[in-house]
């Protein structure tokens, strides 16, 4: 086998043909017989773009089979193949970009319903998938699905803050889609506070530290124009804490001062 040169264009042609035929059994058969050795770079390059090809030529049923077998959150693989739903091709397009561009509304909706989808990926022309749409109905459907997602995730974020659920907060922010769509420095429309202001007022040192490590801005003012540090009572950090409340205030002041110093330095160097 090692002496056989694998032709990338030929593999791609065979893959496109199998996808177009619409039989997952045939596709599986092709991959098992001809996409070998699996670790060959040519094989891998064609294989990684399978979903990009599929959204252009394959019927919905095959696309569903591909997603269910090869895009798994658990990392489990079928035939030792694992695909990334947000894989970018040489133009930076994800399968969602291509499906949107090709006006395949049913496929766009299906892709957007997957847990690991990221509709915020920019291609090399700095366009999100929604900006590739030629069909207004599909673009509107994408907007509605994003708004629904933001509504659900923002509420989940709020609940995790209310419960001081650090594990959940971490997992929400670790998603690139959420990092793009959520703003940790946003202002509560009723209280006028950011979460940093809120937890400074609650004297929650651990949460304030977590917030500052996760993008909370110590220079963001509340609706009354106050910085988070201005909500801490005037304490002298060289004083010996005579009671727990003063000790907490000293700790909070140090934390916020350090954050403002560090952020100033970063701003200057950038």
């Amino acid at each position, binding site marked *: 086998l090692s002496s056989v040169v694998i032709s990338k264009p030929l593999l791609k042609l065979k893959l496109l043909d199998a996808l177009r035929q619409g039989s997952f059994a045939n596709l599986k058969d092709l991959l098992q017989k001809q996409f070998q050795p699996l670790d060959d770079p040519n094989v891998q390059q064609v294989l990684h773009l399978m979903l990009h090809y599929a959204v252009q030529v394959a019927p919905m049923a095959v696309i569903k089979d591909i997603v269910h077998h090869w895009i798994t959150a658990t990392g489990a693989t079928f035939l030792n193949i694992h695909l990334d739903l947000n894989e970018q091709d040489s133009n930076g397009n994800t399968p969602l970009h291509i499906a949107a561009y090709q006006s395949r509304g049913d496929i766009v909706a299906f892709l957007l319903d997957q847990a690991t989808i990221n509709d915020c990926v920019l291609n090399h022309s700095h366009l999100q998938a929604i900006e590739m749409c030629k069909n207004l109905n599909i673009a509107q459907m994408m907007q509605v699905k994003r708004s629904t997602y933001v509504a659900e995730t923002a509420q989940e974020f*709020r609940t995790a803050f209310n419960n001081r659920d650090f594990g959940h907060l971490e997992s929400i922010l670790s998603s690139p889609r959420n990092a793009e769509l959520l703003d940790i420095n946003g*202002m509560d*429309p009723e209280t006028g506070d950011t979460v940093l202001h809120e937890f400074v007022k609650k004297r929650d040192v651990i949460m304030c530290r977590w917030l500052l490590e996760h993008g909370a801005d110590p220079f963001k003012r509340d609706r009354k124009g106050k910085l988070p540090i201005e909500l801490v009572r005037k304490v002298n950090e060289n004083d010996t804490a005579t009671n727990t409340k003063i000790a907490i205030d000293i700790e909070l002041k140090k934390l916020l001062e350090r954050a403002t110093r560090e952020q100033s330095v970063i701003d200057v160097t950038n």
Partner: protein
Amino acid sequence: RQKHYNDGERAVLQFGKNRSEPIILSYKDMN
């Protein structure tokens, strides 16, 4: 008088970024 929001609206207004607001698409943008 201050407007009152339900929990969901309040969370979206606080944490949803402006860029996640619907992009206004026109037929001109579409073509």
